[in-house]
């Protein structure tokens, strides 16, 4: 991409011509610049030119302000994509039966959704059978069971039993909550494949599970 493109965009701003500005953006995009790079490659240099012109007195205050309005109209065309791409991976999450703690589940579910996972949030007080039912409905192969009380944490074993009884041993069951953080052996006792201590580790763990699954599926083919 040439510096002339930034100069053309700057000129469109100063001419208060949003259509011309969008044309410049489209021209640069079709030349092969990725959406995520448009802001740095095109918009930022054009804004620098605008600031320079105003400082040098090349444009007056009113033109500067009006050019900034056009820049605002064009901004959405050059912004990096906000939403992450759909990963195609479904994750079922829920807090165990007789447990109404929801904060960790909400934070982790929202983080996974933002990262492009298809999250099925069953909420609080979820019976083991409901986890199985949702797994069957959605075809999910990853479940995160949340529990913040020792009694409900132990009861996560019933989710694993339910999955096994119904021939769903292939489902990866992760657990999260204070009792599992305090006693790492507890996760193994309930038949979990791993512990999710927080939102960032959830992202890392789910990405690894999804990657392993994809690799296995490829090998099977």
């Amino acid at each position: 991409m040439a510096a002339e493109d930034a100069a053309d965009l700057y000129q469109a701003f100063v001419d208060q011509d949003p259509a011309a500005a969008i044309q410049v953006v489209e021209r640069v995009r079709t030349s092969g610049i990725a959406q995520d790079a448009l802001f740095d490659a095109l918009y930022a240099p054009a804004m620098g030119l605008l600031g320079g012109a105003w400082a040098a007195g090349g444009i007056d205050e009113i033109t500067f302000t009006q050019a900034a309005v056009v820049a605002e109209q064009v901004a959405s065309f050059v912004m990096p994509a906000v939403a992450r791409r759909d990963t195609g991976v479904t994750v079922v999450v829920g807090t165990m039966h007789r447990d109404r703690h929801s904060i960790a589940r909400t934070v982790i579910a929202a983080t996974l959704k933002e990262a492009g996972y298809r999250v099925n949030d069953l909420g609080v007080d979820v019976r083991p059978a409901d986890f199985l039912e949702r797994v069957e409905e959605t075809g999910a192969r990853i479940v995160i069971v949340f529990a913040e009380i020792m009694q409900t944490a132990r009861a996560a074993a019933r989710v694993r039993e339910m999955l096994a009884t119904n021939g769903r041993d292939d489902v990866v069951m992760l657990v999260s909550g204070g009792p599992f953080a305090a006693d790492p052996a507890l996760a193994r006792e309930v038949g979990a494949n791993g512990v999710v201590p927080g939102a960032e580790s959830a992202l890392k763990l789910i990405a690894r599970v999804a990657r392993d699954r994809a690799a296995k599926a490829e090998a099977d083919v």
Partner: protein
Amino acid sequence: MAGRSTALLTAEELARQGAVSAAVEACYEALALGDREPRIHGLLAHLMLEGDFYDQAISEATKAIEIDPDFSAAYLALGLAYDRRGGMWDQSVLVWHELSEVAPDLVTAHVQLGEAYAAATFEDEAVESWKRALELDPKEARATYNLAIASLKREGMALALPLFRQAGELDPSQDELFFSLLGVGAVPDHPIDPAKVKPTRTARLGAAGLALKADDLFAAADLVRMVLDEDPDDPEALALSAYAYLKQEAANESMACAMRSLSLDPELATALYCLGVVYARRTGLNRHAARVFIALAKRAGTQALVHVLLAESLLGLQRFEAASKAYRLGVRLDPACVRARFGLAASHLTEGRHAEAQWEIRRAAYYDTKRQGLFWRLYDEYVGAGDDE
């Protein structure tokens, strides 16, 4: 009676001077002459609170309220003592509720009531209290930080982060960071007349910085324009313009000036600050904001708020562990930084560490209420009302 009044006045004077031990001694002297004066007990409660002796503060504030149930300063001391001590949320809710009745316009009472409700897991009531605080004062930063935490608990980080940033911009510490980077001193008590400023670049830029600090955007604009008319490639003048536009909510003009400034001096801290703040306001530019704030942290790493701004961008990128580190650094550099404390609380929540999050929120309240110095306002109002009667 006269002797008791003299001892009380002495205690008051010593307490206002911060001579805590001497003031406590004077209070006990006053009490020896008679223990039915609420002001002495209220004063003692405040002094005990200052010294972090919470049980004694609770005891004295309770005595003051028993003697006069309308003594708002004693309710304040009692509520703060409960909150700082911790584990007494039910009592705390009652006290803040009472104070919000005795002094309905006291914003802090509603903020504290909300925090007490939240600690007792009455989330809906907590949110109502913070909203009430914001009705009374839309610029109440701590109420907004608390609403951001509530949003994080209910909806996740993506929706909470804009609230954290909104609260941060209400927080005067963000402007203080800019002026600290700029290196300007105290604002003069008279308006700056650009025509009377020495016609040199240094004098004009210095005066423009002071004018910005005094919110005199017109004088600042005139002075910066004089500098730019002589040298349009002056990066510092452009950075001042970027800040002035930022203050007028003109983000694109600010970005244009900051971009130009950084093309002339890529390490200029004031321009980095403006560009980072503009980027942080735009959804989708968290990566850009983080990049700019990392550069700023290299230039001004001793400023707590720089690390807080970086941390907020990292939260937007879902890099919670890195954000937590940056917040921790911010808290280490400035333990009284309320924004860093709330941010750290948020990052604790993403890691499922609820007790630590609650602790940080309590510390934020501790430093914020210490800074406010509300006790003396309520105390003086009470004394004034007594004199009127």
